[in-house]
């Protein structure tokens, strides 16, 4: 299994505060990896360094075999990696369908899209694909609503759909189901799992929903604590690790253990 994302010795300091001390892990092709850890342990900062939003103090990030350590976000995205943000950030005064039409690549390649407008074949294909994605997410009826009119859960769905429109090979999801009701959250996860299994996409996901992380979805888990990787391993290994249980899982880990 070749690594699509490689993080080596990542360190991020904000002035005197060391948010991420030393983080190394990688994500293989077609793999779904969970990134967990207590609040403030540096998960989102790690994400921001990988995606190019922040420039790390030290360390190396490799995306699809290319050194992305000092790249700007749009360059990294074009390598095939798309991320979402913890607080859903849709383009609020644009319609849902428009939100989905922004990310696709090579929109400016041909000038004739200018005068053919919506009748241009590539534009038609993008539009058709966007409606397909909305169908998959089961929110086609919201296509013409402004993004600001969506509920929290619907926003999360559209956010994932928008990320998919960029046809990424690697998806970084920052708490994709925070604030989404139980059944829908489970459905989102099973869809993600399905996506990984069928299309060979890789996913790195930050999540506090232990039900999903420990039992149903991910292939591997990276546990962070205080800016460092505490351990990496399969869900079973993580659940039975005493240090992880003490630092983060608490009763969730124990309960899981007892069930088995």
């Amino acid at each position: 299994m070749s690594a699509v994302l490689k993080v080596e010795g990542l360190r991020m300091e904000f002035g005197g505060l060391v948010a991420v001390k030393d983080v190394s892990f990688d994500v293989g092709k077609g793999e779904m990896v969970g990134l967990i850890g207590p609040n403030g342990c540096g998960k989102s900062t790690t994400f921001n360094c990988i995606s190019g939003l922040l420039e790390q103090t030290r360390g190396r990030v490799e995306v699809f075999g290319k050194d992305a350590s000092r790249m700007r976000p749009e360059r990294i995205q074009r390598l095939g990696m798309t991320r979402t943000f913890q607080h859903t950030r849709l383009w609020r005064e644009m319609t849902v369908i428009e939100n989905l039409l922004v990310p696709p690549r090579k929109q400016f390649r041909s000038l004739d899209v200018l005068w053919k407008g919506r009748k241009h074949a590539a534009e038609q294909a993008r539009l058709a694909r966007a409606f397909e994605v909305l169908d998959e997410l089961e929110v086609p009826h919201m296509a013409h609503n402004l993004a600001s009119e969506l509920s929290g859960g619907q926003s999360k769905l559209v956010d994932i759909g928008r990320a998919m429109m960029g046809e990424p090979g690697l998806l970084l999801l920052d708490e994709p189901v925070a604030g989404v009701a139980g059944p829908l959250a489970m459905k989102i996860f099973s869809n993600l799992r399905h996506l990984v299994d069928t299309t060979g996409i890789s996913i790195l996901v930050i999540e506090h929903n232990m039900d999903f992380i420990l039992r149903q979805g991910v292939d591997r888990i990276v546990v962070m604590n205080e800016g460092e990787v505490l351990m990496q391993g399969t869900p079973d290994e993580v659940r039975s690790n005493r240090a992880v249980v003490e630092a983060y899982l608490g009763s969730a880990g124990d309960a899981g253990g007892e069930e088995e």
Partner: protein
Amino acid sequence: MTFFALAALLFLVILWLPLDGRNDWGFYKTLQVSNVMATFAIFLLLAFSLNLHTGMTGLLNFGVIFFASIGAILVGILTAPQEYFGYGWPILPAVLAAMVVGAVAGWLMAGPTARLRSDYFAIITISMGEVVRLLLSGEPLLRVGANASAIGIGQYPKPLNVWWFCGREPQLTSAGEVMSPVACSLDPSITSAASIVGDLLGFTKPAPYMLVLAVIGFFAIVLTWVVLSTLYRSPWGRVLRAIREDEEVAQHHGHDIMRHKATSLAVGGAIAAFAGALWAWKLGGFQPSFMSPARSTFLVWAAFIIGGAANNRGMVIGAMIIALMEFFFNVLVAAQGSSDLPLHGLANNIDVVFQWMVLTPFQPALVFLVLAGAMVWLRRSSAAETFGWMGATMLVLGVLLGGEGHHSITEVFPEVLGGVHPKMGFVKEVLVGLLIVFSLKFNAKGLLPEVPFRPERTGASPMEVEE
């Protein structure tokens, strides 16, 4: 639908604009209407440019006049004849050069400002405009005209001016000198486009040159409209709006926001530079004062806010209102002095209201407070608040002015200058300010708000694709 109704209504108002009864009514009416239309074209082009920068891309541009002045100054300097310290270029290359420089200025501006927050960007743009204004009043290289030491730019030729009055071939005087357009227009023996149009419309003299400017402005508007609406509908317009909504996210979805912002600034800059050139031609010669923000940038912003951000139709309505107001107050300024001019009655009424507010400020304060009370009773809290503030303002003003005969009044309005009279220029600014405030308070999205893009699903019916 609203757009066409509003546009037709405003156009009727332009046609209705009062004119004093001179004998050559048709000529002056044509002059008046084309004057308003030329002003309208200038403000509309500037509003288009602002709409691209601020409405679509979200770059808070308070330097509309910066780009416009690049166009006005460059066209003036480049085309003025060499004996007036210009460069003697033909007009077309000069206009193209001005637009290119405007575009380059916009492009270069994006570099250092791209990472700034929008409010800092606004400060940069407003200071760029001021820098050019100060340069224009101080820099000797930017002085062009009959007298080398005079500040400002003048004596530059206007497009088609010679052709309009003198015809295709240059007209010579009996002494063998080339006649100026003014001389041609006074010579009834010369047949030219102006005299032909003048005859057709039944004037006793050649048609005014302002008509040519209005027509040039009209074509510029149509062309800009087509270009901009094509861009807005394209994927590029979509990306611009995504940058406006959240540029960081746009960047994380693979768009080079720096390049898109620079392109947006460049396209808008070129449009504004052309508007500046048009402005220069309309003025015939200008001083640095034409660049003062209250007379340029803020009027364009008023058009932008009243009309409706991110909607070019809104820009049309906004620019029409502003152009009308400009003209209306120019007439009022004249009417204030002489009783035989149109709108003298209205000017008088404004005088009376102003005197009432200055000399007995507690009366209007009372009126406003009573109105506020009425609004409370009608449960219109927003209106009540507004009237309340107006009443409070008048109360404070009343205390400060201290009633009739107070020295703060007699010194500002000495009896030798006719006592208490408002300056119409300031009345206009008050009115523009009130329009902006009320527009933001009661109709924040403007008369014609942005229309989001709502494409239908086309996969099911391939017939539609072929259309």
